[in-house]
């Protein structure tokens, strides 16, 4: 993937961990999240998880050079294993764990039917073709067990993966988000104003200024 411009040079949201921005509860929640490694899976079996890893690679792709990539697939599995639900559910879909198991198995079955290989072994083009068909609702193999593939894609696969991705500090650094704000919130609320504990965005040609500001975020 083409490397993107670093809009928030030097910004590390974890530098705020021991400042008044975070309280003990926040620290414990984020510590738990950071303990998830890319290959941890407790809920899905090895085949399902391999499919999920491949799907995550297409839905929330990451720069190759990242030393601490977001373990989006493992975070989805963590959510399923912890039995934490959203509090709402599309009526046409089964419960989240059952929906994911069924959907991943079905995607794999569609991959074998169409290309003769497991979903995770396919190339990017083939994977995208299948995912697009899934989004259209045109995957209707018996493995889906009457679950509409487009509903699964739009109401389960996309929300869970994207929310998992943006729940991780690496993604927060990427978009310059301030992370949890309890007890310390924000004071300077106007357009183009910034608290000293907020990420500084690099203006073209003034990256060094933003870099210096971002080093002070954890003070």
């Amino acid at each position, binding site marked *: 993937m083409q490397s993107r411009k*670093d809009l928030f040079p030097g910004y590390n949201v*974890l530098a705020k961990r021991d400042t*008044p921005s975070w309280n003990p509860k926040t620290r414990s929640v984020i*510590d738990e999240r950071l303990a998830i490694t890319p290959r941890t899976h407790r809920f899905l079996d090895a085949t399902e998880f391999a499919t999920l890893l491949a799907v995550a690679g297409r839905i929330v792709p990451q720069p190759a050079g*990242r030393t601490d990539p977001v373990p989006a697939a493992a975070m989805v599995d963590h959510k399923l294993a912890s039995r934490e639900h959203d509090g709402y559910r599309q009526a046409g879909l089964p419960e989240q764990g059952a929906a994911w198991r069924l959907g991943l198995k079905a995607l794999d079955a569609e991959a074998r039917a169409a290309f003769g290989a497991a979903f995770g072994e396919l190339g990017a083009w083939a994977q995208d073709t299948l995912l697009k068909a899934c989004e259209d609702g045109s995957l209707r193999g018996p493995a889906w067990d009457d679950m509409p593939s487009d509903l699964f894609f739009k109401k389960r696969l996309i929300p869970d993966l994207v929310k998992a991705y943006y729940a991780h*500090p*690496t993604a927060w650094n990427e978009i310059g988000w301030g992370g949890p704000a309890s007890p310390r919130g924000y*004071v300077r609320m106007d357009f183009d104003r910034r608290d000293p504990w907020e990420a500084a965005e690099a203006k073209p040609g003034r990256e060094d200024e933003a*870099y210096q500001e971002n080093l002070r975020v954890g003070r």
Partner: protein
Amino acid sequence: MPMLSDRGPRPPERDRGPPGLSGPALKRRVAPVRVEATVHPVVVLAAAAVGAGLLTWFASGRSKRLDPAASGGRRYAPRGSAVTASAAQRLNHASTMLAASVLFDSGLEHYRGQFFNRAMYTPIIVSSVTLAASMHGAGDTDPGGSRVRHGVQALAGLTGLIGFGFHTYNVGKREGGYSFQNLFYSAPIGAPMALTLAGILGVVAERVRDADPDAPELSGLPAGKVLALATAGMLLGTTAEAGLLHFRGAFQNPAMLLPVTLPPLGAVALALAATRAPGASQTEAKAAMWAVSAMGIIGVAFHAYGVARMMGGWGNWRQNLIDGPPLPAPPSFSGVALGGLAALELLERRRSRF
């Protein structure tokens, strides 16, 4: 805990020139080499303010102490023996209090506003200068005024008015114009007037100092009466400001009602005092003024408690000192009340003991 080392401490990638070049062409800066960033801009501003204040102090000349008060026990803070000099010193106590309140309040609030407009540096420098002139006058027992102090105080009065104009414009240009929302949350419309009050009381101090001790007059009118009515008006103005902001705070603590009830009573006491014959005793009005003065100081403690009640309390001071009740604001009541005491001194035609 895994760290995000791909966001490690290194400067942003630079254009490294055409590929193929190696060696020195690929030189990458490892650490920032800037040194000047170690001095925070706020430190520079504070140094400028202190410097301007010291210059004013020395420019105001040495207090001559020609005629220190004969009241034996007063070793510190001697008072002039003439009632005008004593009242002028008290007026300078008042302007000191107000200038200090403005210095810290505008410093805090304009720091919050990131000095977005260059003009926001002005009140910090001007109130420092006013503070120095006021403190200089407070220690001066000499009946004659000082031109430097007079000029500085007039400058403060003018600056406050200009600031009032800026703040009024700031409120009006916002979406919704002069709505409660904007009066609450944009530039506080009444705040710069505290500097004007400091300037007025400081100018009056110099005028009173120059006046005839037996029949002090301001622009041909009896000084005591004019000053009593003026400070009564100032008390009502300050009450309006506190009332607006305490209304924003929904008077959630019953103590927040105090600054909208006690000062108006004090203003009434001052107005009544102005109607009495010169030389009459003004015990009740003096008690009221001392009560308002004390309220201003106790208000700081209440505001400190308010900061502690905010989320994160004092541990989160970098947010709560700015977002919570302003610590430097209540003493402006004390400042105006001290001006009222000076007026009462002039009305009684004799120096007060305290």
